[in-house]
């Protein structure tokens, strides 16, 4: 039985419409829950770089936007203790071996690192992924450091004459992460007034 082009078009169109409708309804039903989960995830990563005893607000919901040198808008999550800022956190990015590495950096008001955690990366399993807390303690060594402690020229991996260990078999990932933290801290010191200004 041969049917005309129009029939096929109608059949295909009906299927597209039907499944489009199903997906639209599912999106409507899940939209709120997905938003809530994303917020929880953010709070989770923030709580690791902004210690709980530093604030009594919810930093995930207390944000300001600061533009960096390249005009990129950076969302700053602020930790407040009875009305005054005790620390801030923001996302930093570095170029790893296999694409972008996203990290969350927490800094106190004096520019000291409160904590750094990897949010996402695509580094080689077994080599570059030791930047995760799950796979090693490497990322924890930055806590308490700042520009000047160690001096800026030491904010490099050992291979480049700095003070931070690279991994055996993987230099590019740690080099990128160290560089991103250094840039992140420099961003804090150049924009300190803006970041810490109260509304």
């Amino acid at each position, binding site marked *: 039985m041969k049917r005309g082009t129009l029939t096929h078009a109608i*059949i295909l169109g009906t*299927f597209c419409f039907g499944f489009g409708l199903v997906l639209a309804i599912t999106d409507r*039903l899940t939209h709120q*829950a997905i938003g809530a989960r994303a917020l929880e995830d953010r709070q989770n990563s923030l709580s690791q770089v902004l210690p709980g005893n530093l604030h009594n607000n919810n930093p995930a919901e207390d944000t300001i936007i600061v533009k960096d040198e390249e005009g990129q808008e950076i969302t700053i999550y602020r930790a407040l203790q009875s009305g005054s800022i005790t620390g801030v956190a923001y996302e930093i990015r570095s170029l790893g071996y296999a694409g972008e590495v996203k990290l969350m950096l927490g800094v106190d008001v004096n520019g000291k690192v409160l904590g750094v955690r990897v949010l996402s990366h695509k580094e080689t399993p*077994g080599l570059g992924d030791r930047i995760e807390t799950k796979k090693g303690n490497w990322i924890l060594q930055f806590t308490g450091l700042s520009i000047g402690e160690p001096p800026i020229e030491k904010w490099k991996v050992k291979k480049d004459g700095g003070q931070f260990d690279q991994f055996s078999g993987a230099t590019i990932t740690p080099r990128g992460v160290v560089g991103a933290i250094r840039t992140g801290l420099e961003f804090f010191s150049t924009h300190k007034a803006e970041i810490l200004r109260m509304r």
Partner: protein
Amino acid sequence: MMATSYNRIVKDGLWDNNGVFSMLLGMCPTMAMTTSATNGLGMGLATAVVMAASNLLVALFRKYITQEVRIPVYILIVAAMVTLVDLVMNAWMHELYKVLGLFIPLIVSNCLPLARLEAFAAKEPVLPALVDGISMGIGFTLALTVIGSVREIAGSGTLFADASLLLGPAFTFMEMRVLPENMGVLMMILPPGGFLATGLLVVVKRMIDVRSGKGIQMAGAHSVG
């Protein structure tokens, strides 16, 4: 084929016509997601859900899907099911989604679901099609878990690491260390290891078939997807 034997369908899906080891379909997710047994298991389960759902739908609508537009309709159905699973898991099974989320969109690039729609679901009633989707899905899951286990043991020296993240804390007992630390051959969890492990396991499966007197099962469709 009218007198459908469910036994036959299940056996085909799990062993005789196994999607990975016999038909060599779905090579893209197979290579990409078998860096550990847990990853393989997760990818397999997500694929099985999509395969069961899309087999069911195509069998249900098979009288309305004309020959000329069947391929776009199949792709539409698989893609819709994948998006549905993605949204629902993100909303209501978020812990699982954090582990599996990465793999789910990859199911669209798997040509095994599409192959089963064309070869089976389009011609059979709803129930056999559903059984076929589930068996093929479980066969795919088993294959990926086995490849993942081989690669994980050889590459990282562990087996089922992080299984508790996927299946819940009750499954912590599955996580074990087979080889001492730093004994693994890193290449096995890198892409070449995927080809090596899959190739060797295909040989093993065919040897078992030959030994058991079945002869080598030649599948109809050979392609990579």
